[in-house]
């Protein structure tokens, strides 16, 4: 189809760049991105452990400051002025993440990274998360985007960022040695969200008893931040003794029970269904067509959760090639706009700033469910006006752009005649570019 290259770039990719030629064989271009390893992926846990060590060092430094202050707590006024090295590192990693989104030659793969980062949302709400969130993406998400879902789940559930975000390191078996001695108990947070959001979803019919029992299975899953070896650790002294029953099956005591249960959940038919719905919603339409969901569900089942094969199957869905069915959320809108105008990469810091104003601040989703993926959640009058203002502001920085020619480059045959006419009639280049970036066809992908 005439518009297939534009759809490959916008629906599957992150939006066309004026300096990147449209692919001549869009499907082959997308499939090729699923081959090989993510160039930014890291194996092992070195980055996470370095982050944990930095958090620990920072906490020690604060403690020393408090002690120097006679134990009265840090000097608040002086303290506020000291830059927090963890936050600085996090911010520069975030800008690098954005710079990559602006320039990547594998934007479909990067969209998949974003999808899974959102699926396994960790918001940056604590020091351990600030220290380990970017390593989480590099070591847990990226290496598994074309791997098996079970490997991603196991890596996520063992990562300090997720363990901290959902309070798992604070959950104690009430009958464990530590639980009995210190009178501590369960925290169901991670167990509940793992069932509800990460794997089987409520459609599977699990009960409150399953959530509680799953929380018992996961007791002991924690991480070490102070003493070597850093990172994930299973603490038998906080683990609830005995077998546990979750969703009608018995799981043995120990770390092994959790691994077995997560492995079972990752390949559960309800998980396949849940993931298929989310993927089809993201790549086809807000209301995912049943036939497409069934297709993706089948691929997940037949390949035991092979995400590379599943992603390739998305390319083959006819519905994914219907033009402009998806409304761009702010993240998509901002990155597509900045790519469209070839924003110089040294200005990548504009992206997190704009997303904050447009209501989708990076790594700050307010719920573990992550950001919603439907137009209704993003198309309020207020957000639309803010988009127009963003476009208008961006246009003021790009006086050299010819908006009419940019329009045909980035939208191809999808550029509407009335948009082109409005661009030609605009009073200034700035107005014309703002019109292009505010047009209905550019607000969609």
């Amino acid at each position, binding site marked *: 189809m005439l518009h297939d290259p534009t759809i490959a770039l916008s629906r599957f990719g992150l939006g066309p760049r004026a300096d990147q030629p449209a692919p001549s064989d869009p499907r082959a271009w997308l499939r090729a991105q699923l081959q090989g390893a993510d160039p930014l992926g890291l194996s092992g846990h070195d980055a996470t452990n370095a982050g944990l060590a930095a958090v620990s060092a920072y906490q020690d430094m604060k403690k020393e400051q408090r002690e120097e202050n006679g134990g009265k707590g840090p000097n608040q006024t002086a303290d506020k002025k000291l830059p927090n090295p963890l936050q600085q590192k996090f911010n520069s990693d975030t800008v690098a993440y954005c710079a990559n989104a602006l320039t990547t030659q594998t934007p479909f793969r990067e969209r998949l990274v974003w999808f899974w980062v959102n699926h396994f949302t960790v918001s940056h709400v604590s020091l351990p998360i600030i220290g380990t969130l970017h390593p989480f993406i590099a070591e847990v998400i990226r290496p598994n985007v074309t791997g098996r879902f079970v490997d991603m789940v196991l890596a996520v559930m063992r990562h300090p960022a997720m363990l901290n975000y959902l309070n798992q390191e604070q959950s104690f078996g009430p009958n464990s040695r530590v639980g009995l001695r210190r009178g501590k108990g369960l925290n169901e947070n991670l167990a509940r969200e793992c069932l509800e959001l990460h794997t089987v979803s409520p459609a599977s019919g699990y009960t*409150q008893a399953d959530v509680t029992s799953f929380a018992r299975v996961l007791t002991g899953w924690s991480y070490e931040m102070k003493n070597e070896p850093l990172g994930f650790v299973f603490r038998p002294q906080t683990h609830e003794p005995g077998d546990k029953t979750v969703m009608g099956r018995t799981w043995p005591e120990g770390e092994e029970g959790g691994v077995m249960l997560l492995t079972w959940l990752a390949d559960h038919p309800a998980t396949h269904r849940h993931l298929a719905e989310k993927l089809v919603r993201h790549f086809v339409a807000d209301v995912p067509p049943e036939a497409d969901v069934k297709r993706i569900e089948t691929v997940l089942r037949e390949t035991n959760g092979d995400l590379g094969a599943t992603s390739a199957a998305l390319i083959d869905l006819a519905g994914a090639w219907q033009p402009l069915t998806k409304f761009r959320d702010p993240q998509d809108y901002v990155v597509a706009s900045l790519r469209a105008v070839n924003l110089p990469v040294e200005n990548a810091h504009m992206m997190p700033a704009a997303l904050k104003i447009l209501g989708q601040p990076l790594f700050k989703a307010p719920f573990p469910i992550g950001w919603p993926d439907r137009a209704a959640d993003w198309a309020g009058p207020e957000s639309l006006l803010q988009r127009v203002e963003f476009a208008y502001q961006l246009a003021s920085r790009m006086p050299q752009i010819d908006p009419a020619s940019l329009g045909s480059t980035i939208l191809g045959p999808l550029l509407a005649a009335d948009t082109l006419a409005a661009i030609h009639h*605009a009073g200034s280049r700035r107005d014309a570019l703002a019109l292009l970036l505010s047009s209905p066809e550019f607000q969609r992908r």
Partner: protein
Amino acid sequence: MSRMSPLPQLNLSRRAALLGLAASFTLGRASLALASIPGDKRFVVVLLRGAMDGMSAVEPYGDADFASLRGPLALDAAQRLDLGGYFGLHPNFAGLHAMYANGEAGFVHATAGAYRTRSHFEAQDYMEAGVAQRIDNGWLNRAVASLGTPGGRDIALSMGLAAPLLLRGAAPVQAWAPEKFATPDTDLLARIAALAARDPIIGPPFANMMAQRGGPAPNMAATPGNDNDFAVLADAAGKLLAAANGPRVAALEIGGWDTHQAQTRRLDVQFKILDAGFVALKAALGPAWKSTIVLAITEFGRTAHINGTNGTDHGTAGVTFLAGGALAGGRVLGTWPGLGASKLFENRDLAPTTDVRSIAKGLLQDHLGVRAASLGQIFPGSGDASAMRGLVKA
């Protein structure tokens, strides 16, 4: 579009409406949406997102099982603001307690919606939809629609990035915005809106936005001393609702209630913020307070027991707050189910004895004048939850 001065300072966002697990409690957690109906009655619904622990807000200290269940989370007797000999209000609700003493605030205990899910996301959708299924419009919007269009009045109005589900639906919504980016002039905006007109997603909101531009700007000068978003928004809501031609219905949201750990410290802050919001709302409404009722609801309550981290997990029944000059207040209503082991719901949660829909139906009928025949459409399938009468001053 007219700009209102206090709002550009806020990071207003729809996302704020969704609760965070963050340890910080202030920025971006509150949001506000408004709508209009005929008449002079004002109605404010506060959505407490994240599941507020009702037994910490309104302690059933008279229940013999309470102290042993709650241990360190229970208040000292000297701290409690008494509500008549069985229940006590958390001390950070001083403003609300003064209203209670004046008969302008009240509580219904052991309330829950029509659903028994313990998922925040499902439960919030159901709470706002007014029915235990996922639909795309809210009960408050349906109530507004049932009352017809007011003459010579601004229609619906929303602040924040999109209205909450509670107020989404057929009744139109307009937007007010913090000014963060340079704004295109009206002419360029009109041309953008003209392009948008062919698009079913962005066409209607653009048309709405254009209709709103040049409309009357409520006087919303910042009130000194407000140090959090929620009180500022409550103040803004009160001023808008007080205006002669202003909206009459508001939905405010505030997150931060999901206290799985360190509950005492976190609720101390949350309660103070919420109390300041009630106080700011009353002050801003001025004489209109006497024709106002405020209903504050949460998606579900929390476990009766403390969990392992000095917090509480997702439960069932909680407490519903009522306030306003039109309220027949000064009472703790509802049927107390008791906290004995055999009384708890599923052996873990406060058992629900009053359906939140009954309270909402009673207020819609007796305060806003919604016809009894419309209540069934506003809350489909709520036949078992009959309207709670007598909540409004005679």
